[in-house]
């Protein structure tokens, strides 16, 4: 089951400058696992040290935000597109 993972521009430098890659995965979690196995440098930008998806990392299956589906357990099927989309936050002081 090949799904296409879209890598956001700021992370392409850690993925051989590629904008997307195909992985065999039955869930979103599995797709991200395969992605970071292939491109190890992506891991710390996508996951916290305890292995949770960072809060500003958003994942869509086709056009659906996985937060409103089954999160990382969201199933993927052949031909699906998994997009990693940044959200941006900051502020002047802690």
């Amino acid at each position: 089951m090949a799904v296409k993972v879209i890598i956001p521009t700021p992370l392409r430098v850690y993925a051989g400058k590629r904008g997307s890659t195909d992985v065999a995965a039955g869930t979103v979690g599995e797709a991200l696992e395969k992605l970071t196995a292939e491109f190890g440098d992506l891991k710390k930008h996508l996951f916290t040290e305890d292995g949770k998806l960072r809060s500003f990392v958003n994942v869509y299956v086709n056009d659906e935000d996985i937060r409103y589906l089954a999160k990382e357990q969201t199933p993927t099927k052949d031909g699906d597109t998994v997009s990693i989309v940044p959200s941006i936050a900051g502020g002047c002081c802690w």
Partner: protein
Amino acid sequence: MASRENFGGGMEISAPVTITPELAEKIRAHGAETYPHECCGALLGREELVQDQKIVREIVGLYPLVNRRDDSPRNRFSVTSEDVREAEKAATARDLEVVGWYHSHPDHPARPSEFDREHAWPWYSYVIVSVANGRPEDMTSWRLNDDREEFSSETIEVRDLRKGAASKGLGNSARTTR
């Protein structure tokens, strides 16, 4: 040419990011307009490989956004993933990319905070304008190091593209304020 501080991220000296005087002024004006709240927006631009394999980043457009942090707009800003997608579409329509983000620091220096660092993405230019008592002051730009531990400063070159000459350097170099 700005020397990027190297705090273990293995970053090398980087070329400056260029912006036109009009766009630099628009960022300042946005910061003044939303004061005492933080403003935010996307930086649209392109990267070009010039001689010596140097990559030059140019900001040629802005996509101002609404700060989604209604609960704490004086010291936080937030751009949702939907906003990011909108900004990316706007960039693509102009054959550009989202090369970074700007925001203001009302009554605080134009230096990234620890909160900025924790939420930052690599590669993007993070432009910060400090706004003191409603008046825009310093404007700086930063990039997160590969190891996520520190930001490196990036010189902003305000350049009128029609004249093709740099008029002003607004570089800064400092560590994250903690």
